[in-house]
């Protein structure tokens, strides 16, 4: 009994982490029409930067925010200097992001070495909390809270601000948005900065659970991809629901059907692509 409860709680906490990972991916995918294959690298590079900031004596949360800021600069740079030049050539853009992911992986290996680096749980959150018949690590619950806060902030931004309205317009119909005077290419830069920043932030936040190691990028990218395909590209609600669905499938699937671990994760993506290609909450076929 308590095993199932533990899995249930963990489904939610893993969902929270997956949301932090995939929110930015979803926005970029929705607006720019390309799966940004550097997204896993943003997550990993953010985590490594977090390690460095922590090493410099910064507080955990400050380190996470600094990593996010640094990743915003990196993401913006990539969009401005590389992707911008290939505007309209979606295949070329995807290939560039793929190439960049390999380059970032090598760079991280060079700068931080190959040894896995654990991140300590922030002070005060290392313990466990009793929930009914189980005890559950406090920090994982904190991640859910953070995910909820970020989700609300993003939702407010998208739904209530002028910038958000422009982004939504860009996601729905970039050509029409341009005609109405929205500078869509500037939106691209903003969304890329934002996506990279959230991914980098998530890398640090996930550090105490995942640790940081070469290959973290390629471990996380497929998870972001299935979440977003499932939820629908460009849809914040989709990313949120997709994250929790994958969290649940991941936890219960690996216990109930251990031989089918990958099938359980990727089959929903396959089915969605076949029967509802716009995703659960998406408005447009990717």
């Amino acid at each position: 009994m308590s095993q199932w409860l533990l899995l249930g709680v963990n489904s939610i906490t893993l969902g929270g982490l997956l949301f932090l990972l995939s929110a930015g991916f979803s926005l970029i995918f929705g607006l720019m029409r390309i799966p940004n294959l550097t997204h896993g690298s943003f997550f990993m590079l953010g985590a490594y930067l977090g390690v460095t900031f922590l090493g410099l004596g910064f507080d955990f949360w400050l380190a996470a925010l600094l990593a996010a800021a640094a990743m915003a600069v990196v993401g913006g740079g990539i969009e401005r200097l590389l992707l911008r030049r290939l505007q309209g050539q979606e295949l070329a853009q995807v290939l560039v992001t793929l190439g960049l992911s390999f380059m970032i992986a090598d760079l991280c290996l060079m700068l931080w070495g190959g040894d896995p680096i654990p991140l300590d749980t922030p002070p005060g959150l290392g313990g466990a909390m009793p929930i009914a018949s189980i005890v559950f690590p406090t920090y994982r619950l904190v991640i859910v809270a953070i995910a909820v806060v970020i989700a609300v902030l993003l939702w407010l931004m998208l739904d209530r601000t002028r910038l958000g309205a422009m982004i939504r317009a860009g996601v729905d119909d970039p050509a029409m948005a341009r005609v109405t005077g929205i500078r869509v290419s500037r939106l691209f830069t903003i969304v890329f900065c934002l996506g990279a920043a959230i991914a980098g932030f998530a890398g640090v936040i996930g550090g105490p659970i995942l640790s940081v190691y070469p290959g973290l990028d390629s471990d996380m990218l497929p998870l972001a991809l299935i979440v977003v395909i499932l939820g629908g590209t460009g849809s914040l609600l989709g990313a949120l629901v997709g994250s929790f669905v994958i969290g649940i499938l991941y936890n219960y699937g690996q216990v109930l059907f251990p031989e089918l671990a990958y099938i359980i994760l990727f089959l929903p993506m396959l089915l969605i692509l076949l029967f509802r290609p716009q995703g659960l909450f998406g408005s447009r076929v990717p």
Partner: protein
Amino acid sequence: MAFTLDRRKFLAGTAAAASLPWAPAIAAAPPVRIGLLTVKTGPLAQGGIQMQQGFELFLKHRNSTLAGRKVDLIVADTGGNPAGAKTKAQELIERDQVDVIVGPLAAFELLAITAYVEQHKVPMLSLAAADDMTQRKPNAYFVRASATSSQCMHPLGDYAAKDMKLKRVATISEDFAFGYEQIGGFQEVFEDAGGRVVKKLWPPLVTADFTPYISQFSGIDGVVNGFAGSNPIKFNQQYAELGAKAKYPILGGWTAYDDALLKSFGDDAVGAISASWYSSDLDTPSNKRMVADMVKDYGNIPGGYAAGLYINGMCIEAALQKTDGKTEDKPALIAALRAVSLTDTPRGAFHFDHFGNVVGNVFIRRLERKDGKLTNTIIKTYPDVSQFWTYNEKDYLAKPVYSRDYPPLKS
């Protein structure tokens, strides 16, 4: 892109040699060409870089001269995949004409090149652990001074049953051959000694969160893991965090608690019992020297990858001494390699069996915090451990190789 990495040291060495009166005699013999197949990029790079460090430290200790001949080291990066291993092995053998190959790192790389290397009669010394390389599908030109996947897990099974008095354990390891062979070896000996493996879990190689697996541990008195790479850090962190560590003692193989990982582990891993063919804690003169210089040169306590390559270097040296430095006669060279028997090495005394696999110490260690530092303290040594443990070789080989379902769970 095989390239001579050691050019600078090599030039410095030859310049030094040239200033000595007997230099011309040495310069006359061409250098021994050793090809190192390692991994310097991608997720396996951690072990690959340590391999290269271990081998280069060995050459430094010998002034790049083995049995009177200079050594030309050619380092090739396989990228950690079978296709890369094949390409680089071909370059080393056909273009660089190496006398000996050291490496590769991973079993799937080794399996991709074993037939090719044997066909070209190039002796190969690898850490890759695939049991059958020295059992049911042997390669006549292969030498393994580290261990088969199951070689350390046999004694661990013995220790768990007899010394720790564990009765029922669950196992967890990555879903691939190295995991199956480790866990199979543990299960075979543990159950022969009266224990019972009640559950075997195989998370995929890429598993972000082990919670679904850890949640399944109940009704047991211990957990055995066979993780490798960066998974041990993640697993031990989550194992402790979810409160499992407080309930079930954790045991593991050499890759799970390798000494090179000590700097990455936190207190989460303290108390873990592991079985390894190498331990930086071992008090032999050559090990003390190697550990001290690894720390000095690379700032890193050596684990199995670095030590294993250092030991491979010692094997090549001992073999060359027997052949008077000659490498042309490959059958004689491999025979000399397999006849190597050393007493003072970083893993203690060892020799090889007729398959070219090592017979040597296996250490049982406890991970402890001593003077603020994490260390694997040796608590028991199993000497002269063969890949067949105490079983009869013929009976052992008549059984299938350890796999996901062999030995089966007894109900």
